[in-house]
């Protein structure tokens, strides 16, 4: 059964092909059902593969299947194959599961959209690419999936491309990702140059991981940093995080699936996959850890001051992935994967809940225009609250265990980063509490009044249909209980013991005593509770515009976009203007027009020869003849 992994790829691909071919005829809602069934099938296959993997001994759970050779050039052979091991199957399980439910949700959310079918085409293609990224057994095939999800992300962010903002947000995401992709490509080149292979586990010389000795020192550090650049692009880390908030222009299910649960964790996955390489150089891991922690903190502060419900969640996503990157940097890969799984559930849930709110409020996304929605949307309120408590880190929900795992390892590894992580935890609880209080809490139903800029009052919100409620309930269940995957006092048959062989030699293990673990857990709980209470206390009232709590510095994302605009955007624009008006107009056009002018001048001079008088031509003939004769005579006399 473990060799069935290719079916997991083929089902979404088949769904994509069927929808591309017959989609328009199937229409609403059959096209959505087809898409959902394809992904549901992939989930079932993933379950079978997982069962097959359990049937193997603990240390032999690496199954590489090569199907055919993609191409062969020089010393490079690129096979198309799958690598099934605990890491990739864990990814596949939650990707297919969350995707299936988000597909189901989309059937309701995208109802009556003009491009209903197109949406599911992109979504199926996305899931295919994501699974390819995860299951590929070599770097180049991973890169194909990596680019595939990038394209789908672009297409789906710009899904409502008639809106100027959506179109440019798509472009922004694409360009930021390209910067990361350059890092990825260079890393692949460098690895191939040094080891002669791009396969992870199998292939010549035992794959990349069999030849790590070729990748030590400066080369190893360069490869790690290039891979991290790729991860930073895809997973929205400093310095490439700005695209993710803008990506919220896409439909909400897209934000939930691609920009919260799955694609943005691809960078974390890549780093986990390359863990033996990361272990070669300590410096690289330290840089990764610091950037992860700083990103987590910076994004959390920004999330505290956002007005748009989806923007808060977007910065929250950046912040949570920062935690994952921090965990990767400290060598706590299992903690990173654990948080990734838990995050997929609770952040997917939060986005779907936000989508339900937006759907119910006629596409209003401004937090300050909501309030007391609990009276209108009971299902959404309950499930969203579970997601909120989970991300805030309230026990016994999943977020507490996952985040606790990351913070424990950081504490044991490097204490200043732990302080930053704990501060981030307080901020996380605070901004989520603020969001919850503004949207669902409070007495005043602000959507009944006019907006601050004279927007008309909104209709009474309505609860969403069952296709949207069911995913909320299911994800809420897992957001609540996913912590059970890896409880700290259980040491066998859990996520840790399952994943441990993948990271066998490289895993950092915090050897904290029971007392220290209890103390840290209490600190986590205190951080969460303090954050939640402050958030509720400050925002429970009816005054929702509090500029002191939302400084422009935070609203404008630490002026990060303006900074890039100043150092890159404007100079580039000036360069483009220079090229357009000086190089193009003067030099290039000058050369082209100059050639034309020259031909014209020559013609003007030469036209005088053409008088139109027959006698002039006859004279020309006569002179020519005389010259020829003179020449011939001269040859005769002096030749």
């Amino acid at each position, binding site marked *: 059964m473990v060799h069935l992994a290719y079916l997991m790829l083929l089902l979404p691909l088949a769904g994509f092909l069927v929808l591309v071919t017959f989609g328009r005829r199937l229409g609403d809602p059959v096209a959505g059902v087809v898409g959902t069934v394809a992904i549901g099938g992939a989930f079932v296959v993933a379950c079978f593969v997982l069962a097959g993997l359990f049937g193997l001994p603990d240390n032999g759970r690496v199954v590489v299947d090569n199907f055919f050779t993609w191409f062969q050039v020089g010393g490079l052979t690129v096979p198309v194959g799958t690598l099934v091991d605990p890491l990739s199957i864990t990814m596949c399980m939650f990707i297919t599961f969350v995707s299936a439910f988000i597909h189901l949700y989309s059937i309701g959310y995208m109802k009556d959209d003009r491009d209903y079918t197109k949406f599911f085409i992109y979504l199926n293609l996305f899931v295919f690419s994501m699974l390819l990224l995860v299951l590929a057994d070599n770097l180049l095939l991973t890169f194909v999936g990596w680019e595939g999800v990038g394209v789908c992300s672009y297409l789906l962010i710009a899904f409502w491309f008639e809106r100027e903002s959506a179109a440019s947000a798509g472009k922004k995401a694409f360009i930021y990702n390209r910067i990361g992709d350059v890092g990825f490509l260079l890393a692949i080149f460098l690895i191939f140059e040094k080891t002669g292979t791009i396969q992870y586990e199998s292939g010549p010389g035992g794959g990349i991981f069999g030849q790590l000795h070729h990748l030590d020192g400066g080369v190893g550090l360069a490869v790690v940093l290039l891979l991290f650049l790729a991860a930073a692009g895809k997973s929205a880390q400093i310095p490439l995080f700005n695209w993710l908030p803008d990506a919220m222009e896409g439909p909400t299910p897209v934000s939930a699936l691609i920009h919260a649960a799955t694609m943005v964790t691809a960078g974390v996955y890549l780093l986990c996959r390359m863990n033996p390489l990361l272990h070669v150089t300590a410096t690289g891991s330290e840089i990764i850890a610091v950037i992860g922690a700083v990103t987590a903190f910076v994004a959390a502060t920004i999330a505290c001051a956002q007005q748009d419900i989806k923007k808060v969640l977007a910065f929250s996503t950046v912040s949570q992935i920062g935690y994952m990157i921090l965990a990767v940097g400290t060598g706590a890969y299992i903690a990173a994967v654990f948080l990734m799984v838990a995050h997929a559930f609770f952040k997917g849930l939060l986005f779907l809940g936000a989508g339900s709110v937006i759907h119910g409020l006629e596409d209003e996304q401004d937090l300050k225009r909501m309030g007391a929605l609990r009276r209108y949307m009971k299902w959404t309120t309950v499930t969203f609250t579970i997601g909120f408590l989970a991300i805030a880190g309230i026990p016994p929900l999943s977020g507490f265990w996952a985040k606790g795992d990351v913070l424990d390892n950081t504490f044991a590894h490097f204490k200043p980063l732990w302080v930053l992580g704990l501060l981030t935890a307080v901020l996380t609880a605070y901004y989520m509490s603020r969001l919850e209080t503004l949207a669902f809490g409070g007495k005043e139903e602000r959507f009944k009044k006019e907006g601050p800029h004279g927007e008309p009052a909104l209709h009474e919100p309505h609860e969403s249909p069952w296709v949207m409620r069911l995913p909320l309930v299911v994800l809420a269940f897992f957001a609540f209980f996913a912590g059970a995957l890896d409880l700290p006092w259980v040491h066998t048959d859990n996520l840790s013991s399952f994943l441990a062989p993948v990271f066998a030699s490289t895993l950092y293990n915090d050897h904290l005593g029971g007392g220290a673990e209890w103390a840290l857990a209490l600190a986590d709980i205190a951080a969460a509770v303090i954050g939640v209470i402050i958030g509720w206390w400050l925002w429970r009232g009816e005054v929702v515009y509090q500029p002191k709590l939302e400084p422009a510095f935070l609203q404008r994302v630490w002026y990060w976009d303006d900074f890039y605009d100043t150092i890159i955007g404007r100079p580039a624009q000036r360069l483009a203007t220079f090229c357009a008006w000086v190089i193009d107009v003067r030099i290039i056009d000058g050369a082209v027009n100059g050639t034309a002018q020259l031909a014209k001048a020559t013609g003007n001079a*030469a*036209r*005088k*020869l*053409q*008088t*139109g*008088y*027959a*006698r002039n031509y*006859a*004279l020309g003939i*006569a002179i020519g003849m005389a010259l020829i004769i003179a020449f011939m005579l001269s040859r005769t006399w002096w030749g």
Partner: protein
Amino acid sequence: MSLSGAWYIGLAAIVFTIGAIGLLVRRNVLIMFMCIELMLNAANLTFVTFARMLNDIGGQAIVFFVLVVAAAEVVVGLGIVVTNFRRRETTVADDLDSLKG
């Protein structure tokens, strides 16, 4: 008495020069035509002269060809002149300058 070949060549040169100068200085298309004929016949005369002098019949044979070509050329040329006169009411060569650059 018989004249030497040089006389004939000299006559041909004179006739040719008259024709060439006539072609250059006259404006009337018909006159210019006649001048061309003069030049052609001057050439014919040299052919015949050299044929006699060198005892080579080829020179005389060429003359027949020249005569035929000249006749054909006159037919075409006069046709053009007549047509042109009908359209523009002129036989002055300098009025026909539509090919001017």
